[in-house]
């Protein structure tokens, strides 16, 4: 029960990442309605105020919008979601490259490795 959270990092940042991920991956598609703060907080096993903070942050980046009586919705702006997706993908690949470089791989070797590992499938 609860989301897997790392308790030595701020919780709201992790909630933010997780919801961003769910929007990017289409779990919450563009224009869809999000659960209420309280529902989501109970699901995650976190304080509603913390969830609220994550939501405010998402609102500031225009990724979600609040319609006063109807609740919160994912943005209709597909370009915005696509940009976020690319940014997250870039972060992931930078991390991957860094870890591979720590293992002593050069840039060329990393690309070759990816090719041989994943291309046949």
């Amino acid at each position: 029960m609860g989301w897997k959270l790392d308790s030595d990092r701020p919780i709201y940042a992790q909630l933010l990442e997780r919801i961003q991920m769910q929007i990017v991956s289409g779990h919450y598609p563009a224009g869809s309605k999000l659960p209420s703060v309280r529902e989501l907080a109970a699901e995650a096993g976190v304080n509603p105020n913390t969830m609220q903070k994550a939501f405010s942050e998402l609102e500031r980046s225009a990724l979600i919008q609040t319609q006063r009586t109807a609740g919160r919705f994912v943005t209709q702006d597909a370009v915005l979601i696509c940009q976020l997706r690319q940014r997250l993908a870039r972060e992931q690949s930078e991390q991957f490259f860094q870890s591979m470089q720590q293992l002593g791989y050069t840039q060329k070797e990393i690309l070759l490795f990816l090719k041989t590992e994943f291309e046949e499938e």
Partner: protein
Amino acid sequence: MSYLLETNTLYKYYEKKKTPALNGLTLAIPQGRIIGLLGPNGSGKTTLIKLINGLLTPTSGSLTINGMPPGIESKSVISYLPERTCLQSSMRVSELVAFFADFYQDFSVEKAYRMLASLEIHPDARLKTLSKGAREKVQLILVMSRNARLYILDEPIAGVDPAARDYILKTIISNYQEDATILLSTHLISDIENILDDVILIKDGSILLYAPAEQIREQRGMSLDAYFREVFAC
């Protein structure tokens, strides 16, 4: 901002002891927060809680709850889970629910039965026939079924298994009113740290730190549990 609970240089000396249990403790707690009251054994947590509930009187200093001194009126806005049970163990769960409903105007029978059902506790069972964990659950359900301003939970999850702990935390999160405050004293920090707004660290009867939980994670880069272990390392 008006505070839900304010204490002003509280001192509490117990007879025959030279060092005070509370050493000039001053505190102001707003509404709408979930606050962890954390400290090692004998730091004064339970003494503070008993003073707030009017079960002890301070040696000197004062405190108010919702602007009132501890008394009948303050008890009507505080829902208190004591560290030790005070319920008649021969009573059936359903009788306890009726007892609480009779006693507290803000008690919701429906809420109590809903929580009992989801924790699979039979209303006809007598308290003494239940396991230690089930008894604790019953007590917590009774306390959380009230619509209080201030919930004070002294060691609420100690005897409960980890799966039920998750459920109970969920229950706490989804059942309290947004403007109510929950003051939660426990040693099981890692289990509850994700639901806390603020943390109060108490040591030798005074406040060592009163800060938002996220601020501790951000500034120290460690979990509350790890921070507690560092601060109170023996």
